[in-house]
């Protein structure tokens, strides 16, 4: 009994994650109560709010107080902006919200980075200084969620602010997407919080189906590839050949996709079970024909957020510069996007590389139009997808590497030590990771209609079969775990 109580408390080394047994048990208990009250909006929201705050406490400990303070502050600021008559008062309140949100994000996420960058410049011989500041998990995501509300109230995209304090807190703390998105905008999620929801047979089917898909992607593909091949290479790339480093970059590409899109599937699935619809985050990203297209398919809610609240105002203010203004706005946006992912030069360079690739898309627009007229469109599309995929795989080396030195070693191994005659031996030595990688890429490239067909067949099954398949699938998938559940990659951000 004592064990049970202590496992319900915050344990710094064991944060509650969706792929843990404890979450599964807690969610089952919560859900049994939820389905008895979900018809009553007030009771449903109070239950969701309590569970969301408990969930966040279990993940992040006392950072739950920060979440409460930041949520409360934006609730009152939102009302203040709406009620202010003067434009200048509205602007001051907006500035206050930006200081509270971005100030907290900077303090918790970037203090050590700026401190050490400053020390590197002023006192290059001094050892790095690390202040003991714990990053509240999910802060990058809920700050963006809350800012979308304030910016929309300020720009009058939201005509009526949220008047119910608890409903606003629930929007910010909504447990399915608080840790790593999808970044729901207030104008999409708040109306759902305020209305009666229906948990239809279709929702339950979709929810179970997505949770199964997500668990499969996470456990069978992402974690397996990470533990058995990709992480080993990225931890000490100098010990591996150029060919292995190249394979690890292909592996990292699908691993990070499977990890994050698997996480997102689980989030959207859980939301469906609760009667909520959360925006999708992925749409076959490696089918992209150029990097601009990629960002319409990868982490869609983040790119939409950055497009709406950063790129659009920037490019609007630089519009007199035409194309140069657009390029400048893109580079700034992708620099910030890279930095948002983490206080590390690897992320900044990764973001910049995508900004530069999109600049190429703009500058080569006319040339590509001409090329399309000369080359057969199917061949043109295939070549475009092939080149874009290779750009993504090579740039993900920056994303995956712990520091610039590691990334440098991976690049130099691929450039100077690439020997394809090692392929056969590598496939023998890493036969299982190789097979998993192939399966993962095949599954990704399968037409969406196949996925929809399977999903629709599953939804139409009767209750008993649906539950049986779900339970069996989850048990089978978790058999694939070689060690304990691994955290999701995007929880670091």
């Amino acid at each position, binding site marked *: 009994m004592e064990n049970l109580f202590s496992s319900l408390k915050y344990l710094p080394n064991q944060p509650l994650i969706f792929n843990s047994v404890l979450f599964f048990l807690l969610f089952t208990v919560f859900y049994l109560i939820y389905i008895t009250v979900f018809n009553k909006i007030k009771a449903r929201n109070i239950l969701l709010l309590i569970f969301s705050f408990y969930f966040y406490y279990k993940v992040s400990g006392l950072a739950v107080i920060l979440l409460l303070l930041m949520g409360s502050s934006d609730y009152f600021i939102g009302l203040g902006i709406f009620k202010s008559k003067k434009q200048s008062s509205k602007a001051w309140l907006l500035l206050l919200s930006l200081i509270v949100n971005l100030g907290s994000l900077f303090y918790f996420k970037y203090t050590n980075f700026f401190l050490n960058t400053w020390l590197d410049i002023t006192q290059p011989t001094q050892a790095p200084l690390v202040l003991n500041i714990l990053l509240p998990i999910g802060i990058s995501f809920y700050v963006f969620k809350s800012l979308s509300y304030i910016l929309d109230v300020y720009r009058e995209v939201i005509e009526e602010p949220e008047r119910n304090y608890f409903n606003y807190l629930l929007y910010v703390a909504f447990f399915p997407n608080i840790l790593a998105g999808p970044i729901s905008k207030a104008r999409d999620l708040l109306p759902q919080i305020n209305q009666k929801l229906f948990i239809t047979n279709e929702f339950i089917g979709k929810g179970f189906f997505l949770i199964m898909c997500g668990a499969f992607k996470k456990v069978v593909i992402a974690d397996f590839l990470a533990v058995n091949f990709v992480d080993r290479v990225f931890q000490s790339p100098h010990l591996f050949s150029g060919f292995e480093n190249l394979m690890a970059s292909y592996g990292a590409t699908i691993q990070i996709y499977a990890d994050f899109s698997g996480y997102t599937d689980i989030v959207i699935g859980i939301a469906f079970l609760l009667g909520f619809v959360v925006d999708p985050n992925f749409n076959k990203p490696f089918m992209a024909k150029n990097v*601009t297209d990629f960002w319409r398919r990868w982490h869609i809610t983040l790119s939409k957020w950055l497009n709406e609240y950063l790129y659009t105002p920037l490019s609007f203010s630089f519009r007199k510069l035409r194309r140069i203004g657009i390029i400048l706005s893109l580079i700034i946006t992708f620099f910030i996007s890279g930095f948002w992912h983490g206080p590390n030069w690897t992320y900044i360079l990764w973001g910049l590389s995508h900004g530069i690739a999109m600049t190429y898309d703009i500058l080569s627009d006319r040339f590509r139009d001409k090329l399309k007229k000369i080359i057969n469109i199917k061949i043109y599309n295939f070549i475009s997808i092939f080149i874009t995929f290779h750009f993504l795989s090579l740039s993900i080396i920056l994303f995956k590497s712990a520091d610039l030195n590691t990334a440098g070693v991976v690049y130099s191994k691929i450039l100077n030590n690439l020997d394809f005659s090692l392929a056969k031996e590598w496939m023998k030595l890493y036969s299982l990771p190789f097979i998993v990688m192939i399966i993962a890429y095949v599954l990704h490239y399968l037409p969406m209609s196949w996925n929809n067909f399977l999903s629709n067949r599953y939804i139409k099954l009767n209750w008993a079969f649906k539950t049986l398949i779900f339970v069996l699938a989850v048990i089978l998938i978790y058999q694939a775990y070689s060690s304990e559940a691994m955290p999701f990659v995007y929880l670091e951000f």
Partner: protein
Amino acid sequence: METEIIEKLNITFRKVFKDPEIKVYPEMTANDVEKWDSITHVILIAEIEKDFNIKFKLKELIAMKNVGDCIRIINEKLEN
């Protein structure tokens, strides 16, 4: 007035999207023009400003959901 604006907008749209066939109509949105994305949108706005000798505000840009909204805002600016 609206017809005049549409006629003038046709010229701007043809110039920006490099399509001499393009014809604008009030219900038209970015989904109806292949090359109309967040990148060409800014160029389009800047060209409209130049051709009509007006200046948009960011709020107006956000509120524009289709060409009809754009015509209405241009009309308001030209009347004032």
